[in-house]
């Protein structure tokens, strides 16, 4: 009797998987960063620096112009482009997160109060496009547009977030994030083209490349590390990270070249 029940349940599962095979979800899985299982904050004296330039391999594809379908007087003043791959002069690649994959001990986050964690919604665009937010910090959303945006963060590990930032809320603070995650998309449904990224980071050894493709990770305890990257269109190098050795007080230059995800 018991075996019969078990077999029936097994059959159930088989049948449903067969039935569901054609019904895969529409959203592509976004690759995520690798976070250490545990991280210990220690005093880092005489740390080293990793720096470099990220470039795009080959000819940059033409950026897709976004169709601004509403609020033209606010959103449509300048042309907007899809930002998943922004390649600048000399193939410099913006919005690449470069980080240490396997660090388990190092400095804590800067105590400097002047460092602000803000994303501006300006001209119906998230500025910056890729953001690093330390776990435990509060993100401030700025609405420079004076029209309603809704802040919709597609979190899985942390709490879901979707609140309207009305035209009378120039600044709004979000709850503190509790777990390392991401990067997760941040969207505004009212203006469907608006999209950005937030990575909730558990340690300070993350950097995002600027318009010149430059990144800089400072105050790294001496040692050899796996250097990882993430880029929205190019994916990650989780499987084959670059090895870098940092000497006390020294600076290592590690340039990276990324290609589109296959």
């Amino acid at each position, binding site marked *: 009797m018991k075996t*019969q029940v078990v*077999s*029936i349940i097994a*059959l*159930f599962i088989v*049948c*449903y998987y*067969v*039935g569901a095979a054609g019904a895969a979800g529409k959203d592509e899985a976004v690759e995520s960063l690798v976070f250490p299982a545990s991280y210990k904050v220690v005093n880092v004296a005489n740390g080293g620096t990793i720096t470099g330039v990220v470039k795009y391999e080959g000819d940059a594809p033409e950026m897709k112009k976004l169709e601004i379908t509403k609020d033209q007087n606010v959103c449509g003043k300048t042309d907007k482009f899809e930002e998943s791959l922004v390649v600048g002069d000399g193939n410099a690649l913006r919005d690449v997160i470069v980080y240490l994959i396997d660090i388990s001990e190092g400095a804590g986050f800067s105590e400097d109060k002047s460092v602000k964690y803000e994303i501006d919604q300006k001209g119906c665009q998230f500025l910056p496009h890729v953001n690093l937010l330390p776990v435990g910090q509060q993100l401030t959303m700025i609405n420079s547009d004076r029209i309603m945006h809704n802040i919709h963060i597609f979190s899985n590990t942390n709490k879901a977030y979707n609140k309207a930032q009305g035209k009378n809320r120039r600044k709004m603070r979000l709850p503190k994030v509790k777990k390392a995650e991401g990067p997760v998309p941040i969207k505004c449904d009212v203006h469907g083209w608006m999209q950005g990224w937030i990575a909730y980071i558990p340690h300070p050894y993350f950097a995002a490349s600027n318009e010149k493709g430059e990144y800089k990770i400072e105050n790294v305890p001496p040692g050899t590390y796996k250097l990882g990257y993430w880029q929205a269109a190019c994916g990650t190098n989780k499987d084959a990270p670059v090895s870098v050795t940092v000497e006390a007080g020294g600076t290592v230059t590690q340039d990276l070249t990324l290609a589109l995800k296959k």
Partner: protein
Amino acid sequence: MKRMPLFTKCLILFVLLWLFLKFVIGGIISVPLPSSLIAMYLWLIILAILVHVSVEDDRFREFLRPIKETLADESKKVRRTALFVLIPLVMLGFTFSKVSTRADPPAALRTAHPAPPADLTYRDKVIGTSQEVENPFRHLEKDDAEAFRVHVENGRRVYYQNCFFCHGDNLDGKGHFAHGFQPLPANFQDPGIIPNFQESFLFWRISKGGPELPPAATPWDSAMPVWENYLTEEEIWEVILFLSEYTGYRPRTSGEGAH
């Protein structure tokens, strides 16, 4: 105590029967009867009462007595005057309402369960006679319970990919499209459906849907698709297994008498 006159008794009986037809059958049991049918029953009741009272002459005389008195007796003048005013007034109102009421839309007549053709077909291929064809997986119920389960579960998948939009999650004919259809989708939880039919009949109805029904079954407004265009023969037999397993109702076998 004075005995109730026979005429009054009959009148009370008549009114009670009318109320029964109108409100008990039409309201509580909720099988609303068309007014023409009620009228026919009422005529029958009147006839039955007349037959009953006229069996013996005395009884008939007794029955007629109050009527005669009202019509002719000097002592009943008040009652007579009232009736002579009331009856023409009622007739006036009744005729007026009859002449000016709006026409009712014609009732749709349909044969809910038409007789199947002699031969059962699937995409023009003859499977056998409607009387004899059996579900090819039915014997597994006894012979191989696990294999039977697989077919039932396949039937479940087929049902929820194709049927439940109208026939409902719970097979009760309350799917989310049901409100848009007349006649309503079949309710398989109704004990009058599955147990009354052979599996071959269910196969026929599922495979042919509304459009392929024989002319004798029209007018047919069913939205039931011609499922042989979409499902394999096996899938139709499997979904029949699922219908019966889920509801707990077994289709009639060919050995049992027709309902």
